[in-house]
């Protein structure tokens, strides 16, 4: 299978794991999608570093775009790439992030390290929590 094919399978697979295996239903939650929006912004930057500097390179037969060039960076946009990285990386990243967060919620629901809960941010009072 190509990277494109595996990536296109990995996303629905992890959605099924979230919905029906771990039953965390994160894809139905605003907290997940807002977090993902923040994460994907930084993913584009870090992926751009990995691929723009040629740290990771790709076979043109495995991705929608063409192979990473022998020298110099690949296309920044276009030719199946977004910020130097193959668009497949966005699917890979989504699967990794969703599985990570789904497991985190799953183990919390089991009662493993459910506390201390998040917050409050340092700019908010924490003295009133015992009112």
């Amino acid at each position, binding site marked *: 299978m*190509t*990277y494109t094919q*595996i990536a296109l399978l*990995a996303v629905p697979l992890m959605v099924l794991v979230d919905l029906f295996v771990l039953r*965390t*239903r*994160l894809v139905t*939650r*605003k*907290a*997940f999608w*807002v*977090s993902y929006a*923040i*994460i994907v912004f*930084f993913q584009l930057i*870090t992926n751009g*570093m*990995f691929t723009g*500097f*040629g*740290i*990771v*390179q*790709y*076979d043109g037969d*495995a*991705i929608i775009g063409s192979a990473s060039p022998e020298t110099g960076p690949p296309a920044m946009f276009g030719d199946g790439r977004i910020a130097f990285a193959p668009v497949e990386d966005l699917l*890979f*990243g989504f699967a*990794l*992030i969703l*599985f*990570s*967060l789904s*497991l*985190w*919620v799953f*183990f*919390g*629901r089991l*009662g*493993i*390290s*459910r*506390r*201390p*809960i*998040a*917050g*409050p*941010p*340092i700019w*908010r*009072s*924490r003295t*009133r*929590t015992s*009112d």
Partner: protein
Amino acid sequence: MLGLPANLAYAGVLVFVLVGSLWLEVVLRTHVFARLPRLLLVLAVVIWPFLLWDAYAIHEGHWWFDTDRILGVYLPGDIPLDELLFFLVIPIASILTLEAVRSVRGWPVGDGADEEVLEQVNQS
């Protein structure tokens, strides 16, 4: 780059990810590392499908690494150590982000602490 050995390039990107996310633990009090057993369980599970995927992709030649820009230590399956670190750092950064969003907004995620989190947001 920055006078550092080129072999630290991949690891340097991971440091960038950590610098960009670890401050949330302090400033937004995400308490992710205060819940270490839960974090370690996530990491112990999440790496496997992606290490397998990585090993297959490396074997098939879907992707490869500039040997001058990675640490040069390899796991079974010809997986660079840098990749394992990636599969640890990205989940940590993702969880920090989710808990940061919860810290500020109090939106539910279904982990059994939603009411407590919302109460805390409403109180402060």
